[in-house]
């Protein structure tokens, strides 16, 4: 059993364990956006970076805990100043990309990110790849995948048509950390108020506002919260038009 040090504590873990699993097992929190216990690690969101030094290496490096094997002699710090700074800068970048995601806002508030120096982009996807891996590894369908490179990279269906392999199970929506209703919280001027609505994932496809790879469903057509003509109530009792963009 490999013996490693996490935050100064020597721990023994099963062979084949990742540092993320080990840390969480011992109650040490590490934030993630692209990790799910049932899926292969993607190391894409980089939020789980930890400061790690392997055996004889002179310098420690920031490595993604989700794909870092727990090896003998590994020395890991999950919350050093360097890790904190990297996470804060990352979260700031995430907030700018998807300011309305509750998951991201919660992270911002947990890691003390109070300002965002970038212009908000309101993208509908952070390319964590959870949906792609869920579809492939758990639903055994492989009906969606990544297409394009760099700025053009996006989740897509084959030839932009729903694949025959898609069973319309909705697992892709279920795991998505960002396709939630855009926050219009109590303080409209702040994107980081943390008072957002937490709606269950809904179907957006017909509104072209977020990614949904399912056919429009009945519930969505009837009471889709993004339909501009339907008024919904926020938690702070403020009434907003759900179709409004910030």
């Amino acid at each position, binding site marked *: 059993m490999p013996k490693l040090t996490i935050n100064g504590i020597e721990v023994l873990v099963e062979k084949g364990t990742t540092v993320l699993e080990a840390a969480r097992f011992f109650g040490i929190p590490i934030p993630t956006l692209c990790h799910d216990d049932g899926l292969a690690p993607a190391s894409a969101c980089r939020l789980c970076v930890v400061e790690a030094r392997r055996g004889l290496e002179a310098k420690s490096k920031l490595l993604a805990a989700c794909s870092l094997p727990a090896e003998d002699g590994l020395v890991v710090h999950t919350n050093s100043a360097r890790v904190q700074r990297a996470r804060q800068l990352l979260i700031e*970048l995430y907030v*700018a990309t998807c300011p309305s995601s509750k998951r991201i806002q919660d992270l911002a508030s947990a890691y003390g990110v109070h300002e965002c*120096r970038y212009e908000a982009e309101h993208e509908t996807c952070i390319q964590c790849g959870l949906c792609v891996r869920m579809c492939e590894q758990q639903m055994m369908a492989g009906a969606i995948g990544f297409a394009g*490179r760099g*700025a053009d990279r996006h989740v897509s269906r084959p030839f932009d048509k729903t694949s025959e392999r898609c069973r319309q199970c909705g697992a892709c929506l279920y795991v998505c950390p960002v396709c939630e209703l855009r926050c219009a919280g109590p303080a409209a001027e702040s994107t980081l108020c943390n008072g957002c609505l937490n709606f269950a994932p809904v179907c957006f496809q017909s509104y072209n506002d977020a990614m949904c790879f399912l056919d429009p469903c009945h519930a969505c057509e009837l009471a889709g919260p993004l339909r501009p003509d339907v008024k919904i109530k926020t938690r702070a009792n403020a009434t907003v038009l759900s179709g409004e963009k910030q």
Partner: protein
Amino acid sequence: MPRLMSVEELESFRAELRAARDPKRPCLTVCAGSGCTAAGAHDVLAGLRKMLEKHGLQDAIDLKSTGCHGFCERGPLMIVWPEGTFYNQVVASDASAIVASVSNGHVPVEKLLYRDPVSGKRVIHEEEVPFYARQQRVLFGNNGKIDPKDIKDYLHVGGYAALARVLSSMSPEQIVDAVTRSGLRGRGGAGFPTGVKWKVCRENPAPRYLICNGDEGDPGAFMDRSLLEGNPHSVVEGMIIGAFALGAQEAYVYVRAEYPLACEHVRAAIDQAEEYGLLGDDILGTGLKLRIHVVKGAGAFVCGEETALIASLEGRVGEPHPRPPYPAQKGLWGRPTVINNVKTWASVPVIINRGPEWYAGIGTEKSKGTMVFSLVGKINNTGLVEVPMGITLREMIYDIGGGIPGGKALKAIQIGGPSGGCIPAKLIDLPIDYERLTEAGSMMGSGGMVVMDETTCMVDIARYFMEFLEDESCGQCFPCRKGTQRMRQILARICAGNGTEDDLPLLEDLGWLMKQASLCALGQTAANPVLTTLRYFRDEYLAHIRERRCPAKVCRELIFYEIEPTLCDGCHACVHVCAGQGILGEKGQVHTIDRAKCTRCGACLEVCQPKAVRVGTGELVCQN
């Protein structure tokens, strides 16, 4: 040709070859590397062939096309052997003079000899040309002597001798040990000690694979290309030695599809080596097996990263994956894989032939051997340069490169490809080795070296490289994908005069994040051009931001064109070329530029004979 069945047969075949060739027989070698081919080398070859036939000399004088000699600036190049007379800028019509000189007792053709720009004297031999004088051409030395498509030429200059030596007298452990002692470090950029990599791979269970990384994607770099085109057997030989040392039976050469000639020559080299029994099922009768496959890359810069390259080889999307596990532990098809750069493989036979101690004697304490750079940009002698590690930038730029054209001042040198850093002119005495370049904020990279003079805007350069990297980032990991996008946006804003001083710490934070948290080396180094220009040329950023001034007069939004009335002769030339009809004034009278209509394309500047058009910056620039 019957297969060579033993080391002795190889040596006796080589002896036969040498005996059959008269060392005094004249031979014309014309460089047919990509640079000289573009400059018309094939016309020269055709001209020479025609002339030889015309005089009935085709049996008395050999004619050969070789690989790149490196001095691409002066192409097409050729050498007349056995004297070694070096001609530059040859054209097809020179063929008769050359053939006449060879048949009339080798009097050099004066006008084709290289003229030393300082002394003005003509020099006869390649090594007397200042460009070559300071070089140590360990890997590229044979490029000018051999026909890359003919294995006999390679055997003639001592090729496959290192293979014969390891097969007859060395154990695999001894080879790994020799490579370790030579101090050879990966020439692809990261500089990881090759011997250590091989040792780790050997510790993991077979089957093991070898890969030659020829996916050279840096703009302006053509070292690997020239080696694969000009001396493919040296790479193949290095790989066979590697296969023996590592117990591998399958190897891959991954070449950019944009290098058709390199693919063709490597394929030909592999076929010939198999035919001669130097490759295949029973190498030189020793039972050693190796198959080398050539795979073409599909054109992604990121596929030069080893894990992305492996993914691409396996038929998956060319995206890197996290290390550890390293390819030496778990690489191609999940098996231990050694992946080395073209130049690293080609260094292996040299180390075996001349001994690891000899190799380790070149270079500095931690960086051994020679490094190949492609010297491009604002430099007199563009070309491929092979120098011992530890040479200073000053020697590189002024002694080998011949200085900056047009008497302009050197501003910066960008080393290591698009994600290398810009080293300012004040650090010109910096020795080139892995550690010193990293300390200066740059990196060795695969050896791109772009020289910039005072007319280069450093903010604009940073923006250009960031645009390239934004496009080439695979997009898999967030800090690299978004970081390059945001950096490019911020830099574009500064170039347009809309930046704020808060942008600079933001760029630094973003650069730090990308360096620390990105998944692969592309993202980790992508911020280098921005971070180094911020470190060494901060005042230029501030001039763009505070004064809306571009000191190098490059950024279009911050410059204006004007006509100096005392110089303008009213020739109307500028009026004709101005696409936006932005130049006013009758013919014969002083013209003026309407700044509201001016798109700052610079067309008027180029046509103005009396040089009355000037570029200004820093005043209030009108918006349009």
